[in-house]
């Protein structure tokens, strides 16, 4: 059945009319059997122009419109709204681009006009077979989920909660705080990490809109943007936080001692423990992996001494299901594994430490109460060698990328060391110094000039223990001579890696990872906090090595992206999605293979489209051998007609 299409050719002043005979284009299209009306006007996008379109839609009772003008990127919305205003479906309006793709790039008026006719007619052929479509509306569950309770996760959770949305914050360890809470002072201002972080942690725990789930892990995420379902496993702590008074009695009686993760093994802890004094939630956790057993006969000392009876051996793991609308992933980082760093004697010599261990040594609440002492003999180290790029920027053996923060924290370490041990000497081996960032370069200079840290440009070739000292062989490429330092302590700026287990986790969420295992964003420049899966956003070091300010900034970015979704009760999705002709589909599943959005699946041996997930790319339709699947309003039959028009056939 014939359509009544209106064709409106815009002069765009002389931008189009200068090279294209617009009247001629309008006349030519009048010959088309589906074109009921065509005219040209100087500025279609102007108010009078839009009025003109609206009026002739009514006057000639058109059911579809082609506007021949500039690129659809500019005025498609304008004219679709205008069509809508005149009472026809917005998807019955298409734009023929005769400016950017015609009048502006050609000189010969005759040929440009011929081309403009073809482009316009091609668009008419398309519109003639366009269907009226309604945007797909998706109800939104207006709650957020933040995975990871480090600084990034905390920031994102707070931002979302403070803008009035409920947030579930899931942290796998017993307390939030992440790595930042382990740090002593932070560059470049040297303010105390715990002092600035703990208020935020408390705010989280007290926030009426934040549901905090520590010692918990997200097991599964199903659904799609606006309508995710999360399955969360809450591991039993065997201690009821409400009853626990933090009296420490249990610690005293617990017979088991294991390395303390918080101090990175520099100290020990009991099987029942509180990760660190300011832990949130402030309560004890019974580490079942190391506890002799939950039966009074096995041990049961803690349960005996617990006055308030907070300890409950019968606590069971529970599965919590949460419905959420958008998700922020902030799974953070870990340091490059000891195992890979044998050449530096790391893990072999007690006095070879990694950056975080050294942070603990420097920390006032650390194992040495802030005194810098050698783990081996608790002597004050007089000569300390700091080595940068340990594992980073080493494509052959380790990680190709730069861990970004090491230059700065090494400078900080050296500086703080000098503050603690003014008569000590700090050496830094570096490849080159990367100190981009506000006050960063000045900070490094301060370390060199004020604190006399010796920077040696070069790599370390060997580290070995020799009569109580750690001998470091290296080379100073600037001086061009070999260096040997008999150090008391060596601190390695080891590379930042995605948090352990992040990979499996990413698989569960179907987010793609880059070659280094960091979360890969939808677009490196323009969509840096979004994943390709809509409704899923990234924050912090899980996406790439970052320092605190960057992590916080990205967290707020991710939060606001997440909020954009939560702020509406319905999302609208383009209805130009794939459609299956069931009578043609043989269920071979090739379309399912190629769909980047998991929008396709097989049901009773036929392909099925999840319209909410489908982005309408059409790769399925080109893959299907039997043309059983096509994208609405850009179907093969439309392309077929457009080819005709475009060759002028």
């Amino acid at each position, binding site marked *: 059945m014939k359509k009544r299409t209106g064709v409106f050719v815009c002069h765009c002043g002389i931008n189009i009319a200068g090279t294209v005979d617009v009247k001629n284009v309008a006349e030519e299209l009048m010959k088309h059997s589906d074109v009921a009306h065509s005219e040209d006007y100087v500025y279609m996008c102007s108010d009078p122009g839009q009025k003109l379109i609206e009026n002739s839609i009514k006057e000639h009772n058109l059911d579809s419109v082609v506007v021949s003008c500039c690129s659809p990127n500019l005025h498609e919305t304008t004219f679709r709204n205008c069509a809508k205003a005149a009472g026809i479906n917005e998807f019955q309006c298409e734009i023929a681009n005769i400016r950017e793709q015609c009048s502006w790039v050609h000189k010969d008026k005759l040929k440009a006009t011929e081309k403009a006719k073809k482009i316009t007619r091609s668009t008419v052929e398309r519109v003639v077979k366009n269907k009226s479509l309604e945007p797909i509306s998706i109800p939104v569950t207006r709650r957020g989920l933040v995975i990871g309770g480090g600084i990034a996760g905390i920031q994102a959770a707070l931002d979302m909660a403070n803008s009035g949305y409920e947030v579930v914050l899931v942290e796998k360890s017993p307390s939030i705080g992440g790595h930042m809470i382990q740090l002593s002072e932070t560059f470049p201002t040297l303010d105390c990490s715990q002092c600035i972080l703990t208020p935020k942690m408390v705010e989280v725990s007290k926030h009426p809109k934040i549901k905090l789930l520590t010692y918990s892990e997200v097991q599964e995420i199903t659904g799609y943007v606006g309508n995710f379902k999360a399955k969360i496993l809450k591991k039993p702590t065997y201690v009821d936080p409400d009853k626990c008074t933090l009296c420490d009695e249990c610690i005293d009686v617990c017979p088991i001692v294991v390395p303390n993760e918080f101090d990175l093994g520099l100290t020990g802890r009991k099987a029942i423990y509180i990760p660190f004094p300011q832990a949130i939630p402030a309560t004890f956790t019974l580490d079942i992996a190391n506890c002799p057993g939950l039966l009074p006969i096995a041990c049961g000392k803690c349960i005996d001494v617990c006055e308030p009876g907070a300890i409950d051996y019968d606590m069971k793991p529970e599965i919590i299901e949460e419905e959420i609308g958008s998700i922020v992933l902030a799974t953070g980082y870990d340091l490059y594994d000891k195992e890979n760093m044998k050449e530096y004697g790391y893990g072999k010599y007690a006095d070879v430490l990694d950056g975080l261990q050294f942070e603990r040594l420097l920390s006032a609440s650390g194992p040495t109460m802030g005194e810098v002492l050698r783990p081996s003999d608790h002597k004050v180290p007089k000569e300390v060698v700091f080595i940068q790029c340990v594992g980073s920027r080493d494509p052959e053996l380790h990680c190709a990328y730069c861990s970004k923060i090491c230059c700065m924290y090494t400078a900080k370490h050296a500086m703080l060391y000098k503050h603690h041990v003014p008569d000590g000497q700090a050496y830094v081996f570096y490849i080159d110094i990367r100190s981009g960032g506000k006050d960063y370069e000045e900070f490094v200079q301060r370390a060199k000039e004020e604190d006399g840290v010796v920077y040696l440009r070069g790599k370390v070739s060997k580290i070995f223990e020799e009569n109580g000292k750690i001998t470091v062989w290296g080379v100073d490429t600037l001086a061009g001579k070999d260096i040997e330092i008999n150090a008391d302590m060596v601190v390695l700026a080891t590379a930042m890696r995605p948090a352990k287990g992040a990979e499996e986790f990413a698989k569960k969420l179907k987010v793609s990872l880059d070659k280094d295992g960091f979360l890969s964003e939808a677009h490196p420049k323009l969509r840096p906090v979004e994943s390709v899966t809509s409704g899923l956003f990234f924050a912090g070091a899980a996406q790439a090595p970052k320092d605190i300010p960057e992590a916080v900034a990205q967290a707020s970015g991710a939060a606001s992206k997440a909020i954009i979704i939560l702020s509406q009760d319905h999302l609208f999705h383009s209805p130009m999605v794939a459609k299956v002709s069931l009578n043609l589909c043989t269920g071979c599943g*090739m379309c399912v293979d190629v769909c980047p959005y998991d929008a396709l699946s097989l049901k009773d041996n036929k392909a099925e489209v999840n319209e909410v997930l489908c982005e309408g790319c059409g790769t399925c339709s080109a893959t299907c051998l039997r043309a059983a699947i096509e994208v609405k309003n850009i179907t093969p039959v439309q392309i077929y007609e457009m080819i005709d028009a475009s060759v002028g056939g």
Partner: protein
Amino acid sequence: MVNLEEIKKEAKKILEEGKVKYIIGYAKSSKALMAAPAFVKKPEDIDKLIWDPTCFQNLVKFLLDEKRKKAREKEPDTRPVGIFVKGCDSRAINVLLQEKFITREDVYIMGLSCEDLGVLDEKKIFKKLKGEKPEKIEFDQRKNIVISTKEKTIKIPLKEILAERCLECTSSFPVISDVFWGDRNNRSPKEPFKSLEQIESLSQEEKWDFWQQQLSKCIRCYACRSVCPMCYCDECVVDSINLAITADTTAEEKAQKIKWIEKSPESSENFGYHLVRAMHLAGRCIDCSECERVCPVDIPIRFLNKKLEKVAKELFDYKAGLDPEQPSLVSSFKDEDPEDFIR
């Protein structure tokens, strides 16, 4: 060595046990040089089964009829169908499994190795016979074929009259089967794509002249499509063979039906058909070259499919029909896929 008696024994057994609905095998036809498909339902009929180099047909095609039949029946008999498969045929089964057209339970695969031989090429033989009618044929120790016509009896070494595809075959035994006869010796022809060279070495214009001359012969009887086990669509994209319309197909849907090619056997239309067919078989064709065998006007169709088989192997290291789990050639990619042709 494949022993026909063993095959018959197995056939008898599974029919008696009712393990299979029926068996698709080979029997003699009225033409001495070509066996015909046999559909054996009763144990007493197994004696018509044969196995020799005249068993050209890729019987996998008949699984399509079986599937259609099942779809029509109210309470279909869900037992598997027993089917004779050669090496190439078995790869076809893998592709059908890969594309979920059949399930493993639908078939009881009776694998037959071609061992060091393969099947005959009738055309090669007719050349040798110069038009005389073969009355009867015999094979002596898988070395020669002895053909008796009214006038004389001639002995031809089998190698001389084996089908081209068999000479270029890399796995002459079934890669998937429930029962198996014969040996599994992989043969590795020096140049599995040798036969293509005669065309590849031509100049652009010579290539065109060759294909132009060949494809303009096409009378669009669609035997190539009809015999191909991969051509299982109810409706062929390029030219409706069986309009997949149902009572609730709207007039508009019918109107939207694209005529990618016309019915006329004109050069452009014939190219349209054969090009699309070749594309649709890329990564799916398992080189049974039935299409070429059945072509009544001798179009070397295999050269089209074989070419894309070669491209798939060389550019994407993809071989069809070896693994039902692998994704299809065009529904997968590698980051390192070549793109030197892209600007």
